């Protein structure tokens, strides 16, 4: 009998990819006027013990009754007291997430997507260039590298925001500025009273810092306009597209490459991303 109805196999015991795990909010940190970070932990002890992820991977946060939204897990897999997500208030779900208090229940589907090529980056110098909320996806990789410091070469962080009040991660920043094993440069768009760091747009400050492209990889995240000029600045400094890594954000629903909305040609940001090299972006259809 010819096999004309090759049905896909259904395993009743297979996990339901849409069923979030229940987590509890441990701590809420007001980062800026419109960004909050949430630290959470899965309620199921066994699942929590087994939970693992790689730097750069995504999580879908669920507020039941409101919906789901996708964020990079911005804590490091090396520090597993909690998972941290930073949320900028923009739409329905993010606004509702901002109302969460410690002890509240939330749903989590994670980890999703690919990750930063942190293994391949061993032995390289790193330049992190983050603008505003763009620091969030890079934070996980930076923390991972600081916790495995000897595996990596020089680490430079250029972190910019509109004003001194628009920086997140105050505790981290203090540490990063103090550390001798990394160089941290902060910049704001226009002068502000009491500001002791740089003033200037990120691409301009980057050009002044003049990082060498030699054995170096640049990781950059931020608003589209900043990315556009940062890429230009990096290329002028001699970085080739293969040496530049970024993350993409797209509207996502399923997070597992089915529902269709985050595609760029045949690539799905939720599965093939969120991490892409600039070389990969250049090879994809031009629909960002």
């Amino acid at each position, binding site marked *: 009998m010819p096999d004309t109805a090759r049905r896909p196999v259904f395993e009743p015991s297979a996990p339901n990819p849409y069923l979030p795990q229940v987590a509890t909010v441990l701590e809420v940190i007001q980062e800026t006027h419109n960004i909050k970070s949430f630290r959470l932990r899965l309620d199921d002890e066994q699942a929590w013990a087994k939970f693992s992820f790689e730097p750069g991977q995504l999580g879908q946060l669920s507020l039941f009754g409101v919906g789901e939204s996708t964020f990079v897990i911005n804590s490091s897999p090396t520090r597993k007291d909690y998972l941290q997500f930073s949320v900028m208030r923009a739409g329905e779900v993010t606004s509702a997430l901002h109302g969460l208090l410690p002890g509240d229940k939330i749903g989590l589907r994670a980890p999703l997507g690919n990750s930063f090529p942190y293994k391949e980056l061993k032995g390289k110098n790193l330049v992190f260039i983050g603008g505003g909320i763009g620091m969030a996806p890079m934070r996980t990789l930076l923390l991972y590298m600081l916790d495995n410091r000897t595996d990596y070469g020089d680490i430079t962080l250029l972190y910019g925001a509109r004003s001194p009040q628009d920086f997140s991660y105050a505790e981290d920043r203090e540490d990063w500025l103090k550390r001798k094993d990394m160089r941290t440069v902060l910049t704001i768009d226009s002068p502000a009273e009491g500001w002791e760091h740089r003033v200037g747009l990120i691409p301009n400050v980057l050009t002044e810092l003049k990082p060498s492209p030699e054995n170096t990889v640049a990781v950059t995240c931020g608003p589209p306009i900043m990315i556009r000029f940062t890429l230009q600045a990096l290329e002028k400094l001699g970085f080739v597209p293969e040496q530049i890594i970024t993350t993409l954000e*797209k509207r996502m629903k399923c997070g597992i490459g089915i529902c269709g909305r985050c595609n760029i040609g045949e690539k799905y940001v939720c599965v093939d991303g969120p991490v892409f090299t600039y070389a990969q972006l250049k090879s994809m259809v031009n629909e960002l």
Partner: protein
Amino acid sequence: MDMQGKFIPRAQLDDWLAELAARFRVWTPRRAGQEDSGAVVYLPEARQPELNRKPTESAKRVIFPRSEPLLRFLRKPDPDQTGQKSLELQVPDADGPNLVFGLPPCDARGFLVLDPVYAGVKGQAGDSYYLRRRSQTVLIARACSRALTTCFCHWVGGSPSSTEGLDVLATEIQEGFLLQPLTPQGEEVLDSKLLLSAGKEQMEAAQSAWQAAEKTLGPGADMQGAQEALRALFDNAAFWQAEAASCLSCGVCTHLCPTCYCFNITDEAVGEKGVRLRSWDACMFSLYTQEASGHNPRQDKAARLKNRIGHKFSYYPELYQTRNACVGCGRCIKSCPSRLDIRAVLTKALALSRPAAGKPETTAPATVRPAAKPKVNKPATSKPVAAKPGAAKRGKEASHA
């Protein structure tokens, strides 16, 4: 096809469907609505199937419902912690086995397009809701006796009597139907006292019905190179604007399509309880890719039409290394309020990609070659890093979100 077939007289058809309804939820195409309007839709009614008109909608809703609950949630005061609420999540009970009688063969082939997507792409988990229903659905198609002017199954590897994806093929002959089993599930449903053994004559009658139907198909098309042709046209905004000029940005094409599978996930809550729904969405809707920031990567209808056609004939076959994501049912043409013709867009795209001497359409017999194997992804040389999984191809300016 030389399998032992069965025969059912037309007058007995409803009896057999009623018998099947004891074991399955039986869906049939049924005429519904007013005499001068109305439609032929799939309903869970095991009687009087409309077999002379092509169903207005595809059969996909049987396995991929228009809207279905993914889970239900309930918040209750936590007895252990004052002021806190506990959260309960429930996955709805699965529905029972389905059987569709009387779908056209193209609708069955549509499920073969959906299957690899819902089985899980690139090591992702499969979609348990789809897979459960899919594995429990028996498909009994009726061979088409005539093609419509909008039919183009032969462009994409199908035919009026295609058996692909079927459990049973029913062919209308004389005063009834020849029923041919194609799978063990098909054999099982044909195990009924109401069915007679089919003889050689009936088999021959069916064969001539298939041949007659083939002859009613319009000119075929050589789809070779569609994948590359659409890729090459990606940045040709003028082409897509002209083709999309009449588009309404509605969801007729996607919602009637047997192979469109995009969905939305939304929560509906009343007080402390509610449901998370998965419902059909359409890449033709302007809000589909709208981001909270206000940015929309597919702002205009030209970009959306390009995505729909690109997905069917370029992205999907490249990603799944398989057939086109189109079975040529022609519903997107037939029911489009603007009568936008996907065949015309494809023909123009192919013509633009071929040397001027080549004709975009041939009247040759309906042979359709499988989509050309895409270029091998050659990683760029001296590539210090690659995000995983890696891939690199055509070059172009890219910005970032």
